């Protein structure tokens, strides 16, 4: 998987928030959604502009690891580890965020319990259930472990 696609699998679920803030319009939103679903590569500059908040932090991860911001290991390290500790520590805009929002913003590992036409039901955090949209990873099986972000399954682990 290309780095741009991997990045979008994790970042796209945040696009609802970015749209709510008026930072992207409907057309840009649809473009991001379609690229995330159909594994299309969007220009890096465009992604860096839309998700500038994420890239501020990814830059730090890249510096720490001595790698490029578009290195896939950097992207994984950010979304699966660093991003969650930033949320837990209440840094940046998360200082003002209510707990329920923080919980949705975190990336969790989850086990697939049920597969339906449009969504999965997954278990995360030892017993919490959440329905998540499966369009970003359509080929999952019951019992698979996936990562989830907001209302989406992002990647099979």
């Amino acid at each position, binding site marked *: 998987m290309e780095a741009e696609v991997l990045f979008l699998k994790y970042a796209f*679920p945040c696009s609802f928030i970015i749209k709510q803030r008026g930072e992207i319009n409907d057309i840009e939103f649809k473009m991001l959604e379609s690229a995330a679903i159909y594994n299309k590569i969007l220009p890096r500059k465009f992604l860096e502009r839309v998700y500038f908040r994420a890239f501020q932090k990814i830059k730090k991860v890249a510096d720490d690891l001595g790698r490029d911001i578009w290195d896939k290991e950097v992207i994984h390290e950010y979304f699966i580890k660093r991003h969650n500790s930033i949320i837990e520590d209440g840094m940046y805009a998360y200082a003002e965020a209510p707990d*329920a929002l923080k*919980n949705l913003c975190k990336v969790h590992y989850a086990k697939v319990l049920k597969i339906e036409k449009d969504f999965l039901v997954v278990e995360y955090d030892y017993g919490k259930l959440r329905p998540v*949209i499966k369009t970003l990873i359509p080929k999952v099986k019951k019992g698979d472990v996936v990562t989830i972000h907001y209302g989406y399954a992002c990647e099979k682990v």
Partner: protein
Amino acid sequence: MCLAIPGKIIEIKKDIATIDYGSEKRKAKIVEGNFKINDYVIVQGKIVIEKVPEDQVEQWINLLNNGS
């Protein structure tokens, strides 16, 4: 449009909830969990994803509308 902010369930018919966002109402499917009228919820892809405690709703909406 409203999907990033919590809406309030005002009606449930079978597994379809009607959710009020103030400026508009939308329908979403309840597929997992116990939801009742007056619950605040987050919807994505026409599915009710999670409940939001009522005392966190205002903080949530303010945060997203202030664009911090």
